[in-house]
């Protein structure tokens, strides 16, 4: 009996180490994220992140600026805000379970970059009708043409953003960041075990929240929060980062993240084709990205911002959950700017120039859409792999 318990204990320790100690491979995370994005699509609507930020920004500005339009939904009833809460909480729980949660200060220049990056991302997301998730990942996956324009914009923006980081290293004085003795003087307190208990409690609270929502006949909202938590866990454990997919080809040549994102998109796109072609959800659902000016220009501005901040909409969330104070600053300026620029766009009529949502199957039929979509994704992988070997696109 004892040996049975012993072996069970070993088994649990092994599982724990596989989940919370070893880094998950990016491609597995890509597959899991595609599955969760499809579940969200079936459960409610296509996944996005910036819309949730906007809801937060709307509320912040509503309380600060007299006369600012009152938001329609509260953050705990807004679908995109809820999946964001989920991602943040899931990543924080995961970081705690992995003993990686810590409030991480950064040097002043990093905060400046984080704040400015957030402003650029908020502006870009307003122009493009979403962020790297809503207007790129989801847009391409649900066959909204804006997604491709955004992809090109993000690529150009990442290139410019990397140039800016190189200029920064060249011309700005580089100082070491934090004092050395911040951690060692609190050694008497074993934070790591308590940290794990907190992490577990957050997961349990997420599950409890689902039951509370469903008891109030809001199971859909509870489910969104729960799916968000799983996405947060996956993204944190695999350090899933869309920025890498656009930056790394210019920086180190590494193509790992391009493969993970493209693979994820192929799975998501095929699943969404089943959902849309079979009319399980309306074919035009979510197709509103302003093709092509809004998506391209928005993507470009967003791309520069994500390089400066060191996080896109999704990795800003999970990195904040891990305790990076720089990205918490990004989160605030992203939210507020997105809300402000969106309000201005809605009021100014400038929106008309940006373009309108185009559904790829409406233009070239489903029969051509699928091979074209898969071919574009495969070409992205092939070019990135070729670049990893030859470093032809690496500028540094």
């Amino acid at each position, binding site marked *: 009996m004892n040996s049975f318990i012993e072996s069970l204990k070993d088994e649990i320790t092994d599982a724990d180490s596989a989940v919370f100690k070893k*880094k998950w491979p990016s491609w597995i995370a890509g597959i899991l994220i595609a599955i969760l994005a499809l579940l969200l699509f079936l459960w409610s609507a296509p996944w996005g992140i910036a819309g949730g930020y906007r809801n937060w920004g709307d509320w912040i500005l509503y309380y600060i600026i007299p006369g600012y339009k009152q938001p329609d939904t509260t953050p705990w009833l807004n679908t995109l805000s809820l999946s964001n809460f989920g991602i943040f909480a899931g990543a924080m729980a995961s970081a705690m379970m992995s003993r*990686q949660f*810590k409030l*991480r*200060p*950064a*040097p002043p220049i*990093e905060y400046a970059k984080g704040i400015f990056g957030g402003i650029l991302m908020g502006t870009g997301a307003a122009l493009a009708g979403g962020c790297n998730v809503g207007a790129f990942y989801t847009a391409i996956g649900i066959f909204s043409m804006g997604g491709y324009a955004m992809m090109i914009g993000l690529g150009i923006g990442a290139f410019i953003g990397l140039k800016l*980081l*190189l200029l920064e*290293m060249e011309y700005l004085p*580089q100082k*070491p*960041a*934090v004092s*050395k*003795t*911040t*951690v*060692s003087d609190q*050694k008497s307190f074993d934070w790591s075990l308590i940290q794990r208990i907190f992490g577990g409690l957050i997961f349990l609270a997420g599950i409890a929240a689902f039951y509370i929502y469903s008891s109030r006949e809001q199971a859909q909202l509870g489910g969104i929060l729960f799916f968000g938590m799983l996405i947060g866990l996956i993204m944190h454990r695999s*350090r899933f*980062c869309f*920025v890498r997919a656009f*930056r790394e080809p210019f*920086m*180190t*040549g*590494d193509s*790992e993240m391009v493969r993970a994102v493209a693979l994820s998109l192929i799975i998501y796109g095929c699943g969404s084709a089943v959902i849309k072609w079979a009319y399980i959800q309306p074919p035009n659902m979510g197709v509103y990205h302003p093709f092509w000016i809004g998506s391209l220009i928005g993507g470009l501005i967003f791309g520069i911002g994500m390089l400066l901040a*060191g*996080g896109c909409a999704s990795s800003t969330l999970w*990195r904040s959950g*891990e305790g*990076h104070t*720089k*990205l918490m600053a990004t989160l605030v300026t992203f939210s507020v700017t997105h809300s402000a620029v969106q309000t201005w766009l809605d009021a100014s009529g400038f929106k008309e120039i940006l373009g309108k949502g185009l559904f790829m199957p409406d233009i070239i039929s489903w029969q051509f859409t699928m091979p074209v979509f898969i071919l574009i994704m495969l070409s992205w992988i092939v070019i990135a792999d070729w670049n*990893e070997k030859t470093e032809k696109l690496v500028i*540094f």
Partner: protein
Amino acid sequence: MNTIKPDEILDAKGLSCPMPLLKTKKALKGMDSGQILEVLGTDPGSKNDIPDFCKKGGNELLGMEDHPDGYTRYFIKKG
């Protein structure tokens, strides 16, 4: 690992992705083949990024170790 004598030390504490890797790459560029760079970093992502970068970029990671003060030391030999 304490016997390794680095030729240069790069302090990337407090910086988050991608700055530690970017600075590592820049520091290595200015060094000669066979010289050793020690990087100090606090970003959890670096624990995967720096070994990956060394493997793919033809440099050798001699080792990494967590310092009791909460940062990690990486020793890289330029290839």
